[in-house]
């Protein structure tokens, strides 16, 4: 019953022609057709910025994969469909990818409502949905075709709590979190871990993503009299909170989740984010070879721009996809099975990524404790701020 509509055929043959032109070597391989991945994510709408960051990470990873000879001589390409993070569009895209025999697996979507609404279609259609930013605890429970390299908050938040409580010595915390499924889950894991380490959580405040003004929230925080602020935020809202906290005269230590790790955080926050601590998965001077390669490659490709956390997620995801396709080939079921077989894929976030077959997630994210010093992210030297 499935057939390809004309438009995709035209697009596909164009891509194939381009592939042929760029890599004439591929034309002599057994099959010159590029291997096609589907990406469902926001390119327009309120989350559009994350879609564009994904693209940067994907493109860098693909350049490197191609330079290393592609997938057994074949080119790896992706078809990015804009979902606006809207479940209505992500289900249509899911159906589109499932019915398109050239697509071997899918990456995305960004938000939980959009991703998890599409999961049943991918599961029934037998196409892997590889959600690399999907931290919702139920995402991989959608079925055995759902796999995720998103850092589990059960892993990440205790690391952040250890940084704040054990290393920085904070005893009484105020937690500000995005009131989304991610922020809420993270908060719960953080609070649990922080209490285990002996700190008191004086107040937790959830805010919606569109919020820009945090002054009144910060009065609540001030009245709770904490000695540290924990931000479970993205970089744009994290920068806003830090700025306003300093403006209203809060001088407490600020400690933030890795999702603020972006040069934009410093650009938007300015002096206010000076001395902000953050737990991340890698850092600029990281001696790990995969990180050095990622940062150097990224800067070279994008005019000196520093990569951020979302760039790293998508870069890792594309490398993982390549590793999986190398093992599984182009058969959709074999690709699903290959997820359980890939071992120690080089990864910026995990160092070496191997899936836990039970949870279909990767455990053991790397940890780096950073601080902003003179407008730069630096490894924390252990000195109090």
């Amino acid at each position, binding site marked *: 019953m499935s057939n390809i509509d004309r438009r995709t055929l035209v697009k596909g043959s164009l891509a194939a022609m381009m592939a042929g032109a760029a890599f004439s070597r591929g034309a002599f391989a057994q099959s010159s057709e590029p291997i096609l991945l589907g990406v469902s994510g926001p390119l327009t709408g309120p989350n559009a910025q994350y879609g564009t960051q994904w693209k940067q990470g994907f493109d860098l990873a693909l350049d490197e994969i191609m330079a290393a000879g592609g997938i057994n001589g074949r080119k790896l390409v992706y078809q990015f469909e804009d979902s606006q993070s809207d479940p209505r569009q992500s289900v249509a895209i899911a159906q589109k990818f499932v019915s398109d025999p050239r697509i071997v697996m899918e990456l995305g979507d960004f938000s939980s409502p959009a991703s998890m609404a599409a999961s049943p279609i991918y599961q*029934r259609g037998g196409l892997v949905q590889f959600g690399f930013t999907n931290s919702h605890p139920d995402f991989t429970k959608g079925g055995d075709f759902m796999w995720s390299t998103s850092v589990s908050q059960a892993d990440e938040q205790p690391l952040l709590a250890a940084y704040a409580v054990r290393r920085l010595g904070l005893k009484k915390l105020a937690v500000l979190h995005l009131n989304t499924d991610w922020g809420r889950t993270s908060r719960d894991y953080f609070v649990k871990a922080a209490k285990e380490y002996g700190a008191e959580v004086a107040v937790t405040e959830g805010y919606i993503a569109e919020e820009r*003004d945090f002054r009144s929230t910060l*009065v609540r925080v001030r009245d709770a009299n904490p000695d540290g602020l924990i931000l479970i935020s993205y970089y744009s809202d994290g920068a806003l909170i830090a700025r306003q906290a300093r403006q209203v005269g809060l001088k407490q230590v600020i400690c933030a989740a890795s999702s603020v790790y972006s040069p934009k955080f410093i650009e938007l926050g300015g002096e206010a984010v000076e001395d902000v601590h953050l737990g991340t998965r890698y850092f600029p001077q990281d001696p790990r070879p995969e990180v050095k390669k990622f940062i150097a490659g990224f800067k070279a490709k994008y005019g000196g721009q520093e990569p951020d956390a979302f760039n790293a997620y998508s870069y890792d995801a594309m490398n993982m996809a390549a590793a999986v396709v190398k093992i599984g080939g182009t058969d959709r079921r074999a690709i699903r099975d290959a997820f359980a077989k890939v071992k120690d894929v080089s990864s910026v976030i995990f160092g070496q990524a191997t899936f836990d077959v039970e949870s279909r997630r990767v455990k053991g994210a790397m940890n780096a404790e950073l601080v902003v010093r003179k407008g730069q992210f630096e490894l924390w030297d252990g000195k109090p701020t």
Partner: protein
Amino acid sequence: MSSWLDYTINGLIVGNVYALVAVGLALIFGVSRLINFAQGSIYLVGAYIGWVAVVQLHTPLPLTIIVVAAAAALVGLIIERFGLRPLQNSVRIAPLLATIGISFVLDQLVMLTFSPNPRALPSQLPDVRFQVGGGTIGPLDLLIAGVGITSALLLFVFLRYSKLGWAVRAASQDRDAAMQMGVDVNRVNQAVFGIAAALGGVSGMLVGMYYNQIDTAMSLQATLKGVVAEVVGGAGNVPGAVVGSLLLGLVESYGVAVFGTSYRNLFAFLLLVVVLVLRPNGLFASARQAPPEPLTGTFIAPSRPVRIPRWALAVAAAIFAILPLFPVSFYVLQTLINAWLLGMLALSLTLVAGTIGQVSLGHAALLAIGAYTSALLSLTFAVPVGLAIIGGGLMSAALGTTLISPSFRLRGHYVSIATLAIGEIVSLVILNWESVTRGPIGISGIPPLSLFGYDLISPTSIYWFSLSVMVVLALLQGRLLTSHLGRSFRAIRDDDIAARAYGLSLNRYKSLAFIFGGFAAGISGGIAAHLYSYINHETFNTQQSILALTVVILGGLGNVVGAILGSVALVGLPEMFRIAAEYRILIYGIVLLLLVRFRPQGLLGTI
């Protein structure tokens, strides 16, 4: 105690920011009785022009303000001349839709030019802070307050004492009479749009500097808060808009103080509903003021509907019914399933907005109520999915009608604003009422559609199911429209005073319309919940409400076939433009504008 002083100051600071947008909205509403949904986009454009001026051209602040004001005014003039003036003599609702289309286009143009990444917009004022209470204020707070209050005062003086100001007020009271008295109404409109846009642009820039952050998502939020503030103060009342903004800021701040951050917007929208119910013309409308809408129903102008013969409809239905038997891809079927689900919502809205004249901007709330009810019934109480969906429809009908009933006494635009607020309130209640709705985590693992024990999981069976549900609802509604009840609905829409004189009880008929409409929307939401298997408070958002209204206006108000046609068009077009990737929403906006321009009564006309 000092905390309360801080909450008060913070409330005033934020209110200050809202005032900048609200004043521009109030000015435009005062003259053209139009809620300008593009005001937020002009604000966005202003912010990015400000960024170019400050970061690329290094202009000093006074020059930056002049550049931004001039450029934004130019945008405003272009909007007025090419977007709205051609619609002058068409249906009252067409300009409203046009401003929505314009805002799509402007937002997308900004996004394509500057990328969606947020940018820093550094303040050009010295960074000194003054201690006030427990917090501090900076020079930008004062500048924003200064711009807001000065512009409100200037406008007040301009409207009261200058000749053009008189013309503006004359035009706002009675366009035709003003024209007969020799007022150049077009010039007046131009002046108003220019001023409002300049103000909007400057406010976008100032707010950007204030937060040191601009991004393309700021436009819708600015419009929403601006509209709330404006209506609280009394739509069209410029000083009222300033007071309304400050009040809104205070209510939000106290709301945060008492209940916590995640309740903030709940209070903003509750304030709006309370004000609308108690003082429908806003807090500062004088009792003698003429009603904001004409007494007779020119809000939705009658037009000659396109009559489609029954056999043609039957043939079309038959073609869609047998479509899955042909080799069409599942993608096409899924897109049509989306269209049928949107069609049910549009049927609901076209009844409520088109037939009885209550233009709702919060219709997604009915979807959400239906979806949550059905999901929770089937998960928690193991109710069979088919029954759970019907339960969702009933709950949506009951709860939706109850929530909306306080606003039955409102007219025209005020109904839209009240429903917009109710929609937001429902979404925020879902977010905060964790014991029932599971809050931001949402509900996952919702069982798939099933009927009489058979799971409907193949796209083909879901297609047939949703198509037949929609067709049944459409037939019922078609029958309703030709009945006595349908005629009563239309009588209320066309002239509610005459209808009342005939002994029709307005509230009862409006309730009936919302009960029918709520049921259809709730069913659509219920099916969507089982289709998606996961829902949270963001699944059914404001954008969906706006989309539904667009569908209804596009198809022709009150027109059952039009609603379905509109759904197919507005689900299909963005999918067809997929090949244009980032440009597709831009193209969609332009197509929408062209449709409004050349077919303002909708594709099939109002019934």
